Each structure stands twice: as C-alpha cells, then as structure tokens.
C-alpha cells in the first residue's frame, strides 16, 4: 500500500512535495477511474499520494485588475455559480459530466489531466489562461499551451503543484462555445470549439479560436488570429472559406469509438463558418454570447 499525506496548509503541502515527491490528488474523479480495480480493493496507485482537497486556502475565485484568479481546489460546480466567471467558461462546465461529478471535480484537475478532449481547455486557451505553479523554491507562471505538452502530459515537476489558474477578464463582442457529444451529460467530447472576437469601429481588433479533440493538444494558432485583425466586421462571413483553409491542415482528429475523423473535421469547419457568420451579424447590434 502506498503512503498518503494530508497537509493542513498549502505551505505544508509544498514541503511534503519537495521532500517526498508524492503524486497529487484533488477531486480524484479522473484518477479514481484510471486506477480502479475490483470492488473492495484499493485502487492501483503505485506512488505515494498527497491529498489536497482539504486545503481551503486554494478554494477561491478573485477578480481584480482585469484578471480572474481561480484556486486549484475550486470545483466545477462552484464555477457555475460564481458571478465573476465568464459565461463562456460556465457553458463549457455545464456541459461536463453530471452534478455528482462536478461537485468534486476541479478546474485544475481538468487541466492536469491534459486530455485532448478536456472540455474546459479550448475556453481556457482563448482566455489566455496562465497556470501558476508553486513549489518550495519558487512560483512560476506558465501559459496553458506551454503547460500542456500532449495527451496526459504536463510540464510539472514532482516537487511542484498547480496553485491557481489566471484567466483574462475580457469583454468580447461575441463569443461561442460548442461541444459535440453523444449525449447531453456524462459525455466525452467528440469535438469542442471556443471562439471570441472584439472590434472597434466595426474593425476586428482581437479574434481567438481554439479547437479541442482534433489534435494531441488544443489547436490555437496566434499567427492565424493576427492575420484576421483589421477585417471589417461586415466582411467576416465572406472570409470564412479563407479561414477554414487556414485551419484545415491542422485539424487532424483520430477515429475512435466516439466518432470518426471525417465527422470531427466537418464539425470543426462548420463551427468556424458559423462563428464568423454569426459574429458578423451580431456585432454592432448588441453584445452577445451565442448559446
């Protein structure tokens, strides 16, 4: 049997991590399934474990100076009911699992799990999420696209822990989130899509597109987004063919038991078109989020 640690404070957790390098468990909703064995047996953890869900210090949502800070112990359900969380993130969270899972699963856990189909990830990518990594020696801040390296792989050392997530508190003109799953709840995405646009005097000033479950990590290409700046809003619909051609080579989904590569690719290209069409129509009329 493995050893378990129960730190009482965040500082104590950092000390234990530095000394003994245990694996971290928060809500456990992914790990307990991955390590599951027969009923009545301990799950098959092969490493010492550090439990962190009791650390209330890491359970906070703060909004200040144009940023939103989300502590590592914030559950998905808590995000849904917090006034400071952007609606687009709430929409992604509401599509995840079920209340019984959302009450215990954490946002930090969805990031650490680094599934290509992680439902919050495309939204976190377009909100320029930064991950604050704590350790006894130092605190680092790293962009989410540099933190997530591949399926199940993250840039986190054994002495480190995700302390909090920082996202932009930006007021976009139009945002869109879509998830395609086999059913409304308890479904892993076939594809997920998040996009946002801002404009000044009917010219695009900021456009962000992120696509989930079509590559080993979420696809967000800042060079493409820069090319779209200064597009007149009323021409957004016309450029959708062009934009789809830009992204097409990067949409490389797999076929598996949930869906086929062709279907996934088709969905994504349709979402790009829908986003540009709707954004072009809505901007200038009223600020809106497409549900």
């Amino acid at each position, binding site marked *: *049997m*493995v050893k*378990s640690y*129960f730190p009482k404070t965040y500082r104590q957790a950092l000390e234990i991590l530095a000394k003994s390098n245990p694996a971290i*468990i928060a*809500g*456990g*909703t992914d790990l*307990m*399934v991955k*390590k*599951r064995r027969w*009923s*009545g*047996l*301990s*799950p098959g*953890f092969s490493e010492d*474990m550090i*439990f962190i*869900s*009791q650390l209330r210090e890491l359970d906070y949502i703060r909004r200040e100076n144009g940023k939103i800070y989300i502590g590592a112990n914030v559950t998905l*359900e808590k995000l849904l009911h917090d006034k400071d969380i952007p609606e687009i993130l709430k929409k992604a969270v*509401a599509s995840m*699992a*079920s*209340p*019984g*899972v959302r*009450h*215990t699963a954490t946002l930090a856990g969805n990031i650490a799990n680094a599934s290509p189909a992680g439902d919050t990830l495309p939204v976190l990518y377009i909100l320029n999420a930064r991950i604050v990594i704590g350790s006894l020696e130092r605190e680092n801040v790293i962009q989410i696209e540099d933190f997530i390296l591949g399926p199940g792989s993250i840039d986190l050392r054994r002495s480190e822990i995700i302390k909090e997530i920082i996202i932009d508190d930006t007021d976009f003109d139009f945002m869109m989130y879509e998830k395609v799953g086999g059913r*409304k*709840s*308890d479904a892993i995405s076939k594809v997920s899509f998040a996009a946002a646009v801002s404009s000044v005097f009917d010219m695009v000033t900021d456009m962000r597109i992120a696509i989930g479950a079509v590559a080993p990590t979420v696809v967000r290409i800042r060079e493409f987004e820069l090319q779209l700046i200064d597009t007149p809003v009323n021409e957004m619909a016309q450029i959708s063919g062009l934009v789809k051609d830009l992204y097409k080579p990067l949409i490389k989904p797999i076929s598996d038991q949930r869906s086929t590569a062709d279907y996934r690719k088709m969905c994504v290209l349709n979402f790009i078109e829908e986003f540009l069409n709707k954004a072009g129509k809505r901007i200038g009329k009223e600020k809106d989020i497409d549900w």
Partner: protein
Amino acid sequence: MAEIKFVLNNEKVQIDRDPTMRLLDVLRDDFGLIGVKEGCGEGECGACSVLIDSEVASSCIVPLGNVFDKKIVTIEGFKKTDRYKVLHEAYEEEGAVQCGFCIPGMLLASESLLNKNPHPSEDEIRDGLSGNLCRCTGYNMIVRAVQRAAETGEGLW
C-alpha cells in the same frame, strides 16, 4: 493507512483505512450501508450517489481521504427525514420506481437539487438528475415525481 474522521448519517465516525479506497466500498463493506450501489464504477451512472456536505456526489470516484471532516448522508440516513417522506410519496404516486436499483441515488440527487433550488423547472430537474441513469422508467415519471415533491413539500426545502 490513516485515521479518517467524518460524520456519517449524523453520527461521528472514525475508520483506519487506506485513504485511496473508494468511499463506496468503505460505506458498503465497513459500515454495511448497502443502499449505496455500484453500477458503472466510473462516475457515470449515479447508483453510488451519496450526499457530501449536502451535495450529491458519486462515491465510486471519491477517495476516502477526501471526506475528512465532511458530512456524508446515504439513503439510510436520508430515510429518517421529512424530505425523504415527501420524495418517497411523490415517487410512489407518479409510478417512478420500477426495479429500484437507481432509486437511492435518484432520491439523493433529487434532494441535492431541491436543496439548492426548491422550485426547479423541468430542464433544471433533468439537469439535476442527469448523472443518474434509470433503465426502466424512461425518466418522465421521475421528473414528474420531483415536480410533485416540490409542490407537496412546499416549505421543506
């Protein structure tokens, strides 16, 4: 092993167990609370639902170590409440129980929902129960049962 203390169905309990064990197994095997069922074992079906600090959770994916100092309620404990009586009657009246395997979880999910939202819309009920699978009823009777409980139990939640 670690001494884990928590409140189980309104009684303080303490158990010396591997903290990575599933709460589900500890409740069934150590405390004999067999109203907590194992269905899928991966957090999808809700048969293992319990309340943790009044919120429904799937005990098959909750490690024992996560319930330190928490209040756990299983169907056996919930049965002693007035809210249970209202839900019980409403489920009966609407014919919402057939084989019964999902019902302990269904009732606790109903309680968790009504506790947060005493007057849920049909969509909110369906969302609140979305983690609890029932292969008999087709859900409509269960949704109606929760609507009925919200009416007849007015003031309890």
